């Protein structure tokens, strides 16, 4: 359980995190979302006691993390896959961390096996690809078999197989009753992984709700209809209470009617359909709409 209360971090005049309050519960994968520069990494660093908050508190299992003499058995963290010394081997890196925390050496072999780095264990980290470094970072997080795990952008650099593996790993860790907190700036990553979302923008809380609730915020459900007789079909659908918007030459975007009902109407009125596709509300869109006002670095922004 991670509890954050009124957490604030200011760097001079710049407020990176402003009065954040939320809790991350065990047994779930909780996504931590926000555009670049929203304050996600700063928040995670404060949770891990690396940065001192300007105000407010962050606790793990009821205690500020920095009050614990050793950390790996309490929280496993992957903040940045580059946070290793390239001159050491993966094995040397992990075994030094294990030794400091009185974790038996065989655990190092176990986690290296778990992330698929057994073969590369004796190679120096400097020669690792980003994906391999991510795996090493995940191995570091798992080393102490902790009840709380924190991952900052863990998908970066992983190949598709790696992405699938990581998603499965997160779900498994949560199913084991652990608290799993995963940050990302991409909604699409969270869509397949998280049960619960905490969304921030410009250092402030925007949403703290389940994935389903979050999805409901998005654009209402619509149906894409492709037909050569668009002009004939449009009044029929409008008469039934649908709202129709032409979407290109032969396509319509219909809201207010189900795909099944549109199909029935087209059949009754002998209108030929080429495509009838219900479109579920995209989480990505919901996320974009929600954070539109708080994007820190906008491309093409007039300066």
């Amino acid at each position, binding site marked *: 359980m991670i509890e954050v209360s009124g957490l604030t971090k200011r760097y001079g005049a710049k407020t990176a995190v402003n009065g954040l309050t939320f809790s991350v519960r065990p047994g779930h994968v909780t996504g931590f979302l926000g555009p670049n520069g929203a304050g996600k990494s700063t928040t995670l660093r404060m949770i891990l006691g690396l940065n001192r908050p300007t105000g407010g508190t962050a606790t793990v299992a009821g205690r500020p993390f920095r009050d614990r003499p*050793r950390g790996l058995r309490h929280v496993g963290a992957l903040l940045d896959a580059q946070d290793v010394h390239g001159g050491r081997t993966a094995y*040397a890196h992990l075994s030094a961390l294990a030794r400091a925390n009185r974790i038996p050496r065989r655990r190092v072999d176990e986690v290296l096996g778990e992330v698929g780095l057994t073969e590369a264990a004796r190679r120096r980290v400097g020669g690792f690809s980003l994906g391999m470094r991510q795996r090493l970072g995940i191995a570091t997080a798992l080393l102490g078999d902790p009840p709380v795990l924190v991952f900052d952008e863990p998908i970066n650099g992983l190949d598709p197989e790696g992405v699938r593996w990581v998603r499965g790993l997160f779900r498994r860790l949560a199913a084991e009753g652990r608290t799993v907190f995963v940050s990302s700036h991409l909604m699409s990553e969270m869509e397949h992984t998280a049960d619960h979302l905490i969304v921030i923008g410009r250092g402030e809380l925007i949403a703290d709700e389940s994935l389903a609730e979050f999805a409901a915020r998005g654009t209402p459900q619509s149906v894409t209809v492709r037909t050569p007789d668009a002009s004939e079909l449009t009044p029929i659908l409008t008469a039934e209470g649908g709202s129709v918007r032409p979407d290109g030459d032969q396509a319509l975007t219909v809201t207010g009617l189900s795909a099944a009902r549109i199909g029935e109407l087209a059949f009754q009125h002998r209108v030929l359909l080429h495509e009838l596709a219900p479109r579920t509300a995209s989480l990505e869109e919901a996320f974009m709409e929600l954070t539109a006002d708080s994007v820190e670095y906008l491309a093409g922004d007039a300066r």
Partner: protein
Amino acid sequence: MTAPTTTVRPAVTEPSARFRDLLAAEWAKLWSLRSTHWTLLLSGLVIIGININAAVADHHNWPHYDAGIRAIFVPIWAMRDAFTLISGMIIMLVAGSIGAITITGEYGTGLIRTTFAAVPARRSLVAAKLIDVTVVMLGYGTVVAGVSFWATQAILSGHHVGMSIGYPGAFQAVAASALLAPVCALLGMGLGAIIRHGAATMAITTAVLLLLPPCFTDHYRWTADIKHAMPSTAWQRLVDVGYGRFGFTVRHPTTTTEAWITLAIWAVAAAAVAVTVVDRRDV
């Protein structure tokens, strides 16, 4: 999507935190870098080689030396062969750099965040690092100074002008040269903790160790006092067995006790700064 589970994990049980585990972990980190091995080995060979070369040169030139030189060859010239000024400068640079790298290497790579996420007790961790580096550099300094003294005096003994370790001031000179390494390493660590950036730390460590002392003249009492408070000057005082003797006069002299105190203060102050600064700052 995971269905919310009712699995409740038992509270974390963990063995009590021990300082010696941090010592062992930091020790392993130091030796798991190839650069540590190479730097110590190569610089040690270079330092010993330079000193041996000086002794060989004197051994070779001995027949040409006049009575004046021969009269003071032991201890002054013999000791200068054991610990040439350039070898002392190399010890200071190597030790200062190794000390600095143990800290700035963590900050520069970002490893420091992984380290402190694993060991939130930062003061203990930095203390373990300081102790490990001190032990390694003390061993290095002892080997380099011991071998330099023994080898150079063995060569000079061919003309019966080698000193034994029992000669007055000889043991002090060897001990000071051995301790110079850990003192400079601690200085590098302290500056590394303040500056955190590798190259800048190297530049400033070099400046403090080598460039600053010549900036102060022996001419006035106060500038002489500042000069004497520098680690390199303190070392030179301790290896100078002919200090203030044999007709050499020093306008504002300092004592060997003051030199020892100077080295001790630099070491303790640098260690204290490293522990305090690393503990206070965000990483």
